[in-house]
Each structure stands twice: as C-alpha cells, then as structure tokens.
C-alpha cells in the first residue's frame, strides 16, 4: 500500500488503509454559556496512548488563563512557559507542585486557545503535556508534568478568572498503528 493519502474516487478502504490513519477524533464537546469550568468525560482510554486536545471558537469574559486538570487530581502539577511578547526578549513563567496546569492556554473577550499534546494520561506513568501558547500579546511553548502515578479518563478545563462561553473542545487520539 502506498503511503496515504493516495485515495481515488470509489476506492474500497481496507483495514490496512484505516489502520494507517494517524489521528482519530475521540470526541468533541460544545462549551455552554457562562461556565466556569468544563469536564470532559471518557476522553482517555486504552485505545490510544497519546492525545491532542484543542479548544477554539469560544470567548472569555476577560483576559484569562486556562487550568488543565486530569480527573479530580489537584496536586503535583509542574509547569513551565518560556515566551516572548513578540520581540527578542526571553521571558518565562511557571510553577511547581501546583493544583493544576495553570498555564495550559489563554482566552479573552475575542478568543480562546488551547492546543495541547497529552502523553500517557491513561497509563499509570506520569502524564506529560505540552503545546503552543498563543495570546494576542505574547507567545510561547507551555509544558507540564503531572507527577501522580495514576490512570485518568477525564480532564477539566477551567478559567483562571471569569467564565467562558461557546466554542468546541476536541480530543484526538494518536494511532499507534
């Protein structure tokens, strides 16, 4: 089989074709109006080791950071965010043993943006999370390790202040082949 995508109209897609698809949509969830936090249940399972989580299309009541939590775990989040304010001066923010991944994304009156790779949330090894952090006033790359040896199926996205409205949270699984 040639490397996809090499499909033609009317072609039968075999198991080999489908098993070679790299990224599958696990679930998508529309965010309500004026909510402080959103729990996404049954996002992680034995089906995939690693995941991509995105949240776009919504708005916040004010400039806000997003906290990402695995299940109900509220401890042992270590995170770092080197960034710059659209110039060549390096800046950074972070925290150790926090109650959540508190710089997982950013939102404001005109946007929300979360774009994270989540590695091994369903395994009992430590979960590692990373992705770009893109605001209007700055950009960087945010990373987190959750030092708890447990398996998680759910995650929570929570605004640091105020509430969020609308948009869609999508969870994709990376296919191991």
């Amino acid at each position: 089989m040639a490397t996809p995508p090499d499909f033609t109209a009317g072609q039968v897609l075999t198991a080999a074709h489908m098993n070679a698809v790299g990224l599958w949509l696990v679930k998508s969830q529309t965010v309500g109006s004026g909510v402080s936090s959103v729990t996404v249940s049954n996002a992680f399972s034995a089906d995939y080791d690693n995941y991509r989580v995105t949240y776009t299309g919504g708005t916040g009541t004010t400039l806000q950071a997003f906290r990402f939590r695995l299940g109900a775990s509220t401890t042992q989040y270590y995170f770092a965010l080197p960034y710059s304010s659209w110039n060549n001066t390096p800046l950074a923010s972070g925290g150790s043993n926090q109650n959540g991944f508190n710089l997982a994304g950013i939102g404001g009156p005109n946007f929300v943006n979360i774009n994270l790779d989540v590695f091994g949330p369903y395994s009992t090894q430590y979960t590692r999370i990373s992705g770009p952090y893109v605001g209007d006033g700055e950009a960087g790359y945010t990373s987190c390790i959750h030092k708890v040896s447990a398996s998680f199926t759910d995650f929570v996205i929570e605004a640091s202040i105020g509430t969020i409205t609308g948009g869609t949270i999508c969870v994709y699984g990376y296919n191991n082949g």
Partner: protein
Amino acid sequence: MAQFAFMDTTMADEPTRPLIQIDDLVREMTDDEYAEYLARSVTPPLGQSNDA
C-alpha cells in the same frame, strides 16, 4: 422609584454564581464549588499581555 424597580428586575435575571459544565450538562455550582471558585488562585495569563 421606577429606576429602582428596573435595577431589581435586572439583578434578579442574573445568575448568582457561575455555572459549571460536566460533559453536556450545565448546572449551578454547589456551595463547596462556589467557595473554591471564590478562593481560586488566579494565575494571570502573563504580565506583559495586552490581549484585553
């Protein structure tokens, strides 16, 4: 007097506390959840941001 009546009506229409969402279900926070919300450690997006 009419002004006060208008204000009372407006305030009554607003939620008393933020909502939380679990999957597709949106509900008002419980007392414990609201206490955590009020005590939430606010991590600012970043000090140099001008997103607002």
